[in-house]
């Protein structure tokens, strides 16, 4: 009886896509159409004809510089947070007691979400012109703003971004580090390997693919971030998301109607390439892990 029942359920749903239609359609309308519009507009002149002028405009002058600056910010933020996050993850995974690990994972989940406006203001209160740390260091005889530091710069943003990027890295790296079996390390020892050798031959190769994948994730995160940068720098630093924002709000007068779309297309392209690399690497990372 039961078997027949089961078979019927399976066979009836065999070729059906019906249940997936609403969600897929929704994503198509509210993500696909806007993204498609941006991509199409990127190649369209004000009169509606096909053109490369928008793309050319996006690749010259300030706009090219903002791509460079955005990538620079994303690369710096990624490299620092990736290594910092990896170190934290290693420190946490090594604990014999699992309670601190869970606490730190929960905290990371929380801090990874602390992007945006409130974060920007917290850092103004910390490292801004009159921030607590700024004044503390100043009263100790070291005014960081006299030494070239500014919170409202790429360096400042790099520090602020650590606040949500490091926790993301911790969260992503804990599972692969956890999957490193103690028996691999012990087997290597009994076979004659010292710790540096074990790092080079076993831990390194196993951790590297997920590490790289996670780094790509952090890159897209830092590259696409808008709120923190907007709240903190009010458009002082030329970053691509900020430029697009200015174009949307009509703060900038240009001859190019669809320049913003060209910039947006550039962002989709960069994030897309990184996303494909991420998927490739995650698959490789999963190959070894059971």
């Amino acid at each position, binding site marked *: 009886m*039961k078997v027949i*029942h089961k078979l019927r*359920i399976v066979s009836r749903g065999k070729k059906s896509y019906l*249940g*997936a239609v*609403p969600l*897929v359609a*929704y*994503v198509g309308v*509210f*993500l696909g*159409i*806007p*993204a*498609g519009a941006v991509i199409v*507009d990127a190649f369209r002149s004000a009169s509606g004809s096909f053109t490369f002028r928008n793309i050319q405009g996006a690749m010259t002058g300030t706009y090219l510089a903002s791509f460079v600056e955005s990538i620079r910010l994303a690369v710096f933020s990624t490299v620092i947070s990736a290594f910092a996050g990896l170190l*934290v993850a*290693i*420190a946490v995974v090594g604990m*014999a007691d699992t309670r601190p690990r869970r606490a730190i994972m929960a*905290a990371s989940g*929380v801090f990874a*979400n*602390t992007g*945006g*406006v409130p*974060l920007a*203001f*917290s850092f*103004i*209160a910390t490292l801004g012109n009159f*921030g607590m740390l700024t004044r503390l260091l100043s009263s100790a005889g070291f005014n960081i703003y006299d030494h070239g530091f500014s919170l409202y710069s790429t360096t400042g943003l790099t520090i602020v971004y650590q*606040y*949500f990027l*490091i*926790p*993301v890295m911790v969260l*992503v790296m804990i599972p692969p580090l*956890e*999957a490193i*079996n*103690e028996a691999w390390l012990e087997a290597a020892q009994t076979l004659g390997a010292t710790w540096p050798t074990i*790092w080079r031959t076993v*831990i390194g190769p196993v951790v590297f693919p997920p590490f790289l994948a*996670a780094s790509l*994730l*952090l890159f897209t*995160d830092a590259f*696409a971030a*808008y*709120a923190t940068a907007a*709240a903190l720098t009010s458009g002082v630093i030329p970053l691509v*998301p900020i430029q*697009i*924002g200015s*174009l*949307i709000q009509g703060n900038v007068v240009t001859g190019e109607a669809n320049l913003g*779309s060209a910039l*947006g297309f550039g962002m989709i392209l960069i994030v897309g390439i990184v996303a494909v690399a991420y998927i490739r690497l995650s698959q490789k990372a999963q190959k070894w*892990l059971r």
Partner: protein
Amino acid sequence: MASIVASETELVGKPSIKFGESEKMFGLGRRFRFIVLTLTIVFFLIPVLASVRYSLLGNHNSLTLSAYGAIFTDPEFISSVLVSVKIAVGTVAITILLVTPTVVWVRLKRPDLVTVLETISLLPMIVPAVVVTLGVLTAFASLPNIIMGSPVILALEYVVLALPYTFRSIDSGAGSIDIKTLVEASKSLGSTWLSTMVRVILPNLRSAITSAIFLSTAFVFGEFAVASLMSFTTFPVWLVQVGSARADESVALSVVALLLTWGALTLISIIGFQRQKRTGIRRSSTFSVSIITKE
């Protein structure tokens, strides 16, 4: 925009129970752990402390709650929070009605499509929020004012933008129970489809749906890019407006906003842990679902 959804690697327990688990995993000593964790805690606590201090002292170095008092009596505060609440209700309602049946259906009828849907749910991460806004403004310009001229469009878009987290949350909840067996058992006892759904499936997905509700609410109350670029004064947008005029009030508000977000997210992790306890399944995704950066 958004950040990540971690891989669904299950946290596999060690094969054997060992006494005195080695404290020197990876050949690194306790000093390494102590230094790394101390520096981390310091880095993450200082901005919190500084914010609290700043909100209480302001620039004038006298302890006062006036900043907190000022914000809560500001009529703009009330109205911006109300706008965000309305958007949150809409976002949550659409999300739950859209995602829950889809997830149940796919797990039941087409388990082979789970990966495809997961991938689709991650697509919003490829398109930065700023670009989505640009697209919405050009593609939907001709839509009636009741949609484009009101926060309705924000709710509609937030459903998509929060999808990587909400979908993952409900999907991993559904993955941790055996929907197929539950449905077969229920049907063999003579239940109809509707009563199976309402009485058997939903109660088992309750904690997953609750996390999804928290996640979308947290998302709505943090999202700045789309709202500000479309000129809607939601709570985060108002926060920035205040910030440019009255610094100590905005920091005070940020403290409140941070504490509220952390409270909500901590609640999600607790729900997650309880779910783990109940089902006996430890999944890293319980943590990963709670990763959003509100950019």
